[in-house]
């Protein structure tokens, strides 16, 4: 039972970070350009979402957070395309600048809890928890017994629905004309330019889309954990890359839709691995190294596979 609840917790966390994995997939696999804006845009989605949630609009908050991420992506793309700054440096610069913006969005503090000032029935000024999509969703299960009473299950269900719609929408989008143009930009930018498509425009659209997805993950996490904190963006990119690559190792190269699904799957598996790593009986400071080793092992799998083609064929013939 303990393991089941840990698994559900890992799945619900993995699902919350899945939009970020999708975002990293878009830059890393489709545009084939590393984008380091992620650490900043994740927190940007989180802080904007927190501000709007506290104003009392949980659904609008998710959209606002997502739009904020798109805006961050727009500036990164602007540095890349118009100022011709190295993509890696562009991302780092925008992420660094976002620190100040995020600080300001939180009202000059590093941590903001989702609550508002109100007056209780006794007439005293109190702070009340702001409604979030997860709280509203959990209200549907009021009085539920068994598995549906578990808040992790509720979080998992709602996030799963959001991620499923998102993945399907992306799957469709990348087969439309604009979507194809973005993919072509990643595959062969010269060819795209010679086909009189504005490659700067398609690249900008791609980076905006990616950061919008990353920021959505930040916004979802903000509503689930009910606070925004400036430190929440650290090592986000590494996590996103690890998810995408673990997914790829799992599912192999299976085209666009397969790639999207495997990014989501990778995010889930990454969280399961981390959760298991924290279960090992060793000093908790060692977990960082252990999780790094696991990710390195996952990254090495494609190469190992490539080096052992004979054995694989032999195994298949039996």
């Amino acid at each position: 039972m303990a393991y089941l609840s840990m698994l559900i917790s890992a799945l619900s966390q993995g699902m919350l970070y899945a939009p970020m994995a999708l975002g990293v997939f878009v830059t890393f696999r489709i545009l084939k350009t590393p984008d380091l804006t992620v650490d900043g845009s994740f927190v940007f989605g989180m802080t904007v979402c927190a501000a709007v949630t506290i104003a009392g609009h949980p659904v609008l908050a998710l959209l606002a957070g997502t739009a904020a991420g798109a805006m961050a992506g727009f500036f990164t793309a602007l540095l890349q395309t118009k100022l011709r700054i190295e993509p890696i440096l562009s991302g780092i610069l925008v992420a660094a600048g976002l620190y100040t913006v995020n600080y300001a969005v939180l009202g000059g503090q590093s941590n903001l809890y989702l609550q508002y000032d109100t007056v209780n029935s006794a007439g005293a000024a109190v702070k009340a928890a702001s409604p979030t999509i997860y709280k509203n969703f959990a209200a549907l299960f009021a009085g539920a017994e068994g598995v549906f009473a578990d808040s992790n299950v509720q979080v998992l269900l709602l996030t799963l629905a959001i991620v499923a719609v998102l993945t399907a929408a992306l799957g469709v989008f990348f087969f439309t004309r604009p979507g194809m143009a973005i993919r072509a930009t990643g595959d062969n930018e010269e060819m795209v330019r010679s086909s009189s498509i504005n490659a700067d425009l398609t690249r900008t659209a791609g980076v905006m889309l990616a950061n919008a997805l990353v920021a959505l993950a930040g916004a979802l996490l903000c509503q689930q954990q009910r606070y925004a904190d400036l430190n929440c963006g650290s090592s986000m990119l590494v996590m996103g890359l690890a998810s995408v690559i673990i997914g790829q190792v799992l599912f192999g190269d299976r085209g666009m839709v397969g790639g999207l699904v495997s990014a989501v799957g990778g995010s889930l598996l990454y969280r399961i691995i981390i959760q298991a790593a924290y279960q090992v009986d060793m000093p908790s400071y060692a977990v960082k190294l252990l999780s790094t080793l696991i990710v390195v092992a996952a990254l090495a799998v494609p190469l190992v596979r490539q080096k052992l083609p004979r054995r694989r064929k032999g195994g298949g013939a039996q």
Partner: protein
Amino acid sequence: MKKFVSVMASALVIAGILAGCGSASTGSGSGAPSASTSGTSEDVYRIAIVQPMSHTSLDQIRDTIVSELEASGKSVEITTENANGDSTALSTILSNCKAEGVDLVVPIATSTAQSAKAVFDGDGTPIVFAAVSDPAAAGLTGDDCQYITGVSNNIPAAEIVKLIFNFQPDCRKIGFLYTSSEANSVSTINAAKVYCDQEGIAYEEVSIANLSELQTAAETLISRGVDALYTGNDNSIASAMATYTDVAYAAGIPVYCGADSMVADGGFATIGVNYVQLGEQVADMVLKILDGAAPADLPYETLSDYAKFVNLQAAGRFGADFPDSAYMDYDVLVEADGTSHFGT
């Protein structure tokens, strides 16, 4: 497909092995100190201490709580967890604690406490936070916090004023000097001003936008006839203590400040967080809950004792003639001959 199945299987095996290692041991999840005294395993009260990263003061809090609980003679099993600066790991660690059915969780620092609130979600597991500066702003005091209490590391304004009046009982006017862009510094000064207004203590204030204005600002305050200068935990002014104290001490005005490092750099005296004290108060609270007290009946506490330091070399520079009794509760951070005990 075969490839996929084999990879999936090996991944699950790895996860299984890792999980298996954890369940095989009693300390569950950590190699840090865990104590289990007499009593059957059902009677053991399981406590998890979770910190967001390693940091001298956070480690000091953790170690104090562990040693206090072990010394209590109660049948407790303590697990210590550390997210190592990975904020995404906080939820993971806390979910593990929840799944293992810990009886009480001690989150250290604000975001850890907030994550604990979200993970345990009012399921009845007591949460005793440590080192949250503003529990109300952090959402840890509302109606949905029946199972949450703890110890804040906030230094009340009254203590700051007491610090000044301890040495200068006849101080007529305090001068507050701060950097306007530093939130922590501003909020400390604002709280101190409110307190002074209530108590009828006169004060003057000058804020600076950048360090080039520091000397002028200090001179302005002195010209307005302040008897003491106070600056909170202000990172920019902390980097220019030499300039600040040269001006002040030349006029015979002591400089009180908000951090021990500022005293080491020339400030006269400070009152700060004593992390051992904080850990002891948290441990006391845990023991009360262990003895059957309801967390709802235990409001969160602020520190009952503080770290107090003086710089005797600085005292010589402004010609202090305070009685020995004033120094009684204070630890000497810098000796009269300039020997510093800071960081040792």
